[in-house]
């Protein structure tokens, strides 16, 4: 007997509503279908009627968590169209904010993964530590969410020695806490056992469905825009591309934890090698006719802006492809043949921008023709109930560090 289950789409607290309609055979998902567009805002059309400078602040508002990704991707694209060489110090500060954003996003994700797996104290710990990064971003830019740091030719605010020292001090704290989490996760077999083997995505599937970011790297593909197509100062900074071979949610967690450690190293390097000099250069207002394909490694994966200019002070066309869109096709592949109890975990594992909210799930019982409305928290409780009596120690899975 097959059931149809609809996940989503609407909840007032969501900023990215999405609807997934699944065909179930018992508890196993046989097919999944996606419906997007509940929050289509027409930003690409709007960008065509605004100047390049105005679009800086428009692109920043595409996303709340990776606001700096979109703004930087757009800024460096327009800088290439302007044939402008940005100030070196500005590029270092820009890269610094990029990495700080990655740290806050990954810490947020770790917490969400902990919560979806029923490890709620982990969620409390990581979100407490995320405040440290948020405070650093606040010191640098004056804002916690929309930093407004970029401008054409560099950044808008310099950092001084006191800020540098404060960031380095806080970084030590973050580093020691992250190491503590590594040990905590390693000594907690239920957490590791809950994540292992869930949401399988083979290497071939991940490549053919054009997945990006940690989702792709957890399937063993070492693709990272920072290495493949270096922007800002990533060609001068030493770091490693983090991958995992387990192709499941555990792999995605491992990749993100490894990336956190790499990010701390990058931040330390940037602060210790910050060059002297101006932090921005003057940029022209008009841009001659050309086009640019700008790539950026956001915390969730490759972010793409395609900008076409027409000689005026407004772009002819701005095309934005956020990393979550690229991962949707892969998510459907992950959901197939998984359990309904794993939906929250699989969906959270691609780190969609819908982490912290409740969702409505309508369960249609095809046999009885009755509908039952479940909230996301009830679904999570169902998942925890299902896995409560599983003896993870028997599965003998170790934290791969």
């Amino acid at each position, binding site marked *: 007997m097959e059931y149809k289950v609809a996940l989503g789409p609407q909840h007032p607290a969501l900023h990215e509503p999405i609807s997934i309609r699944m065909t179930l055979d018992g508890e196993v998902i046989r097919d999944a279908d996606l419906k*997007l*567009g509940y929050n*289509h805002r*027409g930003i*690409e*059309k709007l960008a065509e009627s605004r100047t390049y400078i105005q679009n800086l602040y428009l692109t920043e508002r595409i996303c709340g968590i990776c606001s700096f990704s979109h703004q930087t991707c757009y800024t460096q694209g327009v800088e*290439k169209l302007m044939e402008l060489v940005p100030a070196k110090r500005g590029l270092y500060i820009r890269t610094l904010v990029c990495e700080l954003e990655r740290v806050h996003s990954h810490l947020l994700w770790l917490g969400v993964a902990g919560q979806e797996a029923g490890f709620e104290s982990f969620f409390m710990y990581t979100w407490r530590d995320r405040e440290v990064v948020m405070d650093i971003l606040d010191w640098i830019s004056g804002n916690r969410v929309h930093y407004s740091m970029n401008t054409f030719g560099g950044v808008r605010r310099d950092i001084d020695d006191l800020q540098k020292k404060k960031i380095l001090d806080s970084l030590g704290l973050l580093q020691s806490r992250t190491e503590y989490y590594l040990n905590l996760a390693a000594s907690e077999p239920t957490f590791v056992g809950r994540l292992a083997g869930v949401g399988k995505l083979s290497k071939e599937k991940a*490549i*053919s*469905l*054009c*997945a990006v970011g940690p989702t792709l790297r957890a399937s063993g593909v070492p*693709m990272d825009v920072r290495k*493949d*197509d270096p922007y800002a100062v990533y060609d001068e900074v030493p770091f490693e591309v983090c991958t995992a071979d387990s192709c499941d949610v555990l792999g995605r967690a491992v990749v993100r934890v490894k990336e956190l450690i790499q990010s701390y190293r990058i931040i330390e390097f940037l602060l210790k090698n910050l060059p002297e000099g101006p932090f921005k250069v003057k940029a022209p207002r008009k841009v001659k006719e050309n086009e*640019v*394909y700008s*790539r950026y490694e956001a915390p969730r994966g*490759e972010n*793409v802006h*395609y900008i*076409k200019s027409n000689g005026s002070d407004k772009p*002819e*066309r701005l*095309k934005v*492809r956020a990393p979550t*869109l*690229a991962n*949707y*096709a*892969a998510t459907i592949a992950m959901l197939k043949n998984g359990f309904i109890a794993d939906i929250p975990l699989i969906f959270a594992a691609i780190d969609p921008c819908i982490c912290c909210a409740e969702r409505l799930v309508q369960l249609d019982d095809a046999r009885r023709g009755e509908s039952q409305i479940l909230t996301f928290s009830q679904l999570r409780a169902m998942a925890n109930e299902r896995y409560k009596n599983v003896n993870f120690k028997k599965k003998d899975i170790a934290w791969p560090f």
Partner: protein
Amino acid sequence: MNPETIIEKINDDIKDKIQEAALTAPRRINVKVGRERLNEVLTYLKEQLGFTHLGTISGADLGESFEVVYHISNAVTTVNVRILTPRAEPKIPSVCAVIPGAILYERELQDMFGLVVENIPDPRPLLLADDWPAGEYPLRKDWHFNRPAEIIPGGE
């Protein structure tokens, strides 16, 4: 492998299938093809040169025609494969047989520009609202947003 050798290889192997290939920026190659040759060229790039990752498909309204750009990347460079399709007959071939991950981008093109993607596995609308009027394509240059007049309930 670097961008220069890739462009040499493209010119050696499939010169008769493409209209133009040029290095436009560091790590960016521009390839122009006719729309009927698109799948052949993408298959060649994927199988011979390892261009497996489709970043996105961008459309642009050029007035008389539409430009569609397929951005595909490998570990060292990105190729922008570009086709033109006339406004009177806005048809493009589907590339899902070569790159399955293209489906969402092709559906987006159908919504936004009114292009007809031939042989698309799933032709449903993707982004626009369910009650969006047929025949209106928001990213075409002749489409303008007219804000409906504000009605104040109980007002004048």
